[in-house]
């Protein structure tokens, strides 16, 4: 027994010097654990990203030998009309894909939480459905609604109006579909968030004489800060990289090029007009933009909570 105990203590003594080096300090063996994931990440994400960055420094048609032009492709992005317009359009789409859905989602979630509607799961599912349906299907369905002989014109009594073929309304039409798709996501995130708010907080607010508006401002909004951050991050990125909806609903950049977006420009340049370098430059620019916007959103959303 004694021998065993002392042996146990001895082994404990032997372990402790290693631990005394600092609890939780990274050890080299840790890299071994992340290696598989890291290898996949490097191979399929980091390497293509760096490769795109490298290609963006060339004037290359994708076939013959490219010529190194340094940052010329980036300089041209600022100067030329096409790329500038595409980034402008994506700004408008952020309003429709991110800002509106978050606002509408907040209102819907609050309403659904306060007023105990019958069949809540049904409404929740119905509003979330656009997220589940493939974008191509969404685009084709809405194309029919916006068609000159479609439902929208029948409802409005404006037969023959070409919503998607008019440079004044095409981007708006695509944006509205974006709002329809993204609102469900925002709402479901917010409903989950509201559900986690302790009932005492609502009681306290009511005791202090807060009406529905005051309750929303004092309880719901601060509690949902994290969810709003997540919703904004997801929807803004969806707006920045949007391609399928725009490409399907308004082919070839839409009427008068009024619905070109960076992703469309990348596709067009890389696969059709033989400007691979320029396409890569747009790709890098939109990636950096997405990083910056995401960082900004998480910074704002996380800042005041602490």
């Amino acid at each position, binding site marked *: 027994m004694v021998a065993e105990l002392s042996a146990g203590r001895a082994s404990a003594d032997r372990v402790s010097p290693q631990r005394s080096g600092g609890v939780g300090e990274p050890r080299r063996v840790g890299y071994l654990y992340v290696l598989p994931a890291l290898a996949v990440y490097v191979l399929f994400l980091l390497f293509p990203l760096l490769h795109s960055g490298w290609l963006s420094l060339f004037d290359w*048609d994708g*076939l*013959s030998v490219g010529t190194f032009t340094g940052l010329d492709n980036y300089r041209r992005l600022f100067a030329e009309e096409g790329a500038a317009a595409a980034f402008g359009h994506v700004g408008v789409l952020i309003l429709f894909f991110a800002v509106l859905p978050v606002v509408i989602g907040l209102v819907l979630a609050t309403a659904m939480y306060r007023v105990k509607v019958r069949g809540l799961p049904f409404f929740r599912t119905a509003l979330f459905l656009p997220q589940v349906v493939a974008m191509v299907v969404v685009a084709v369905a809405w*194309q029919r609604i*916006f*068609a000159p002989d479609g439902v929208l014109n029948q409802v409005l009594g404006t037969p023959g109006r*070409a919503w998607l073929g008019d440079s004044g309304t095409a981007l708006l039409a695509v944006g509205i579909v974006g709002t329809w798709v993204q609102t469900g996501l925002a709402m479901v995130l917010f409903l989950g968030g509201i559900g986690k708010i302790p009932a005492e907080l609502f009681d306290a607010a009511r005791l202090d004489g807060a009406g529905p508006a005051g309750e929303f401002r004092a309880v719901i909004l601060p509690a949902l800060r994290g969810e709003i951050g997540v919703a904004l991050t997801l929807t803004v990125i969806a707006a920045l990289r949007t391609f399928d909806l725009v490409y399907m609903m308004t*082919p070839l950049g839409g009427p008068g090029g009024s619905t070109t977006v960076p992703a469309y420009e990348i596709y067009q340049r890389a696969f*059709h007009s033989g400007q691979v370098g320029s396409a890569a430059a747009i790709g890098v620019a939109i990636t950096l933009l997405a990083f910056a916007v995401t960082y900004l959103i998480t910074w704002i959303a996380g800042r005041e909570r602490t």
Partner: protein
Amino acid sequence: MKLGAWLCTAAVLALAACTPGSDNRPAQQPAGDVKTDVAAMGQVTLTIWDQETRGGQQAQISALNDQFQRKYPNVRINRVARSFDDLRSTIKLGLTGNDAPDIAQVNNGKQDMGAFVKAGLLRPLDAYASAYQWTQRFPESVRKLGSYPDTGDALGEGRLYGLPQTGELVGIYYNKPKLTALGLQPPKTWAEFDAALAKAKSAGQLPIQVGNLEKSAGPYLFSLAMHRFGNADEESKLATGRAGVNWPTDANRAAARQVVEWADKGYLTPGFAGLKGDDAVSKFSTGDGVFHVDGTWITPTVKEPMKDDVGFLLPPEKDGKVTVTGGTGLPWAISSKSKNPDAAAAYIDFITSPDAMKTVATAGNLPVLDADKQAASGVERDVLDAWNKAANSPGLVPYLDYATPNAYEVVTGSVEQLLSKQLDVEGFLGKLQADLDSSRGGR
């Protein structure tokens, strides 16, 4: 962190070592080296990328592939079928890759076949053309649509790189009962066409069914108007971007005004700018619209519901001469990386032979050769006769998008903006000219 940083550095170093692209122009094959005896070539696998995916196309190419493999049991065909758009988007990667297809259908345009020729990705076929007597089989007008010089910038010159199986025309489909109800004959002159449009409109019919959401239908209408005011030679030069021809001419101004007039008089489908091309075809084939300007590839689509109620017309003649937009189906070309170019050439010879043309026509397609010898009735007869007349005349004008690398986007976009009044006639022609100028100056 250290490992990550190390990997990053390694990746950057690996990248820095290579400039994208390569120069791999193949040597021209001497005519004497060509082998035409397929049976003596041993076991051969031919990888073929085609876009013959629609009903009639699928039928003809499967039949011909079977026949070829039965005739030469030592050849195995590995067919990769993709839709036109998919093939166009992936063929560049396919031809530059290490296991490039032996044979591929390559779009005639400068941004496709022209660019591939410039990069040396396709094998010149002149040696085979003399061995198989393709020069006699195909008229010059057809061979020109698969020819490029080494610089890849002038369609119709230089060496032969591809041969087509089918022909295409953009003409006028018309609804026979509707025309009869209006008391009219199919229009043979421009005056009769004008009168028919006006009469249809006043009788409460839609004169021209058109859907331009994808912007492909607009240029068909504009080309039709160009045929009314221009001449075939000048139009061909513009379409292929030759030196010495320009857009702002009186004929083109008149053509642009004509298209706008059709729109202003309400001759086109209300809201045509937001209507899909396919939807316009289906509306026309279910009895909405007297005329429909489109390519011959829609013949099977409209014939099925309309049976003998539909006819096809060439654009009205001017001074006794016909001018019509058209071309060939996608030419079949041989990759310069193919290890079996002789077998590949034998395949192309096989699928363009007189017997193959019969198979092509039987499946409801428009064969590029021997159109007059094929049995057909109704609208298919109209199309075959129209092709036979057009292909053997100097009046066959290529599509407008062969002129510059960006021509498709520029032409379709400009016509769309002309019709929506975002561009006036001068602005419209100016935009087309600017694209031509930048392409001439740029390369």
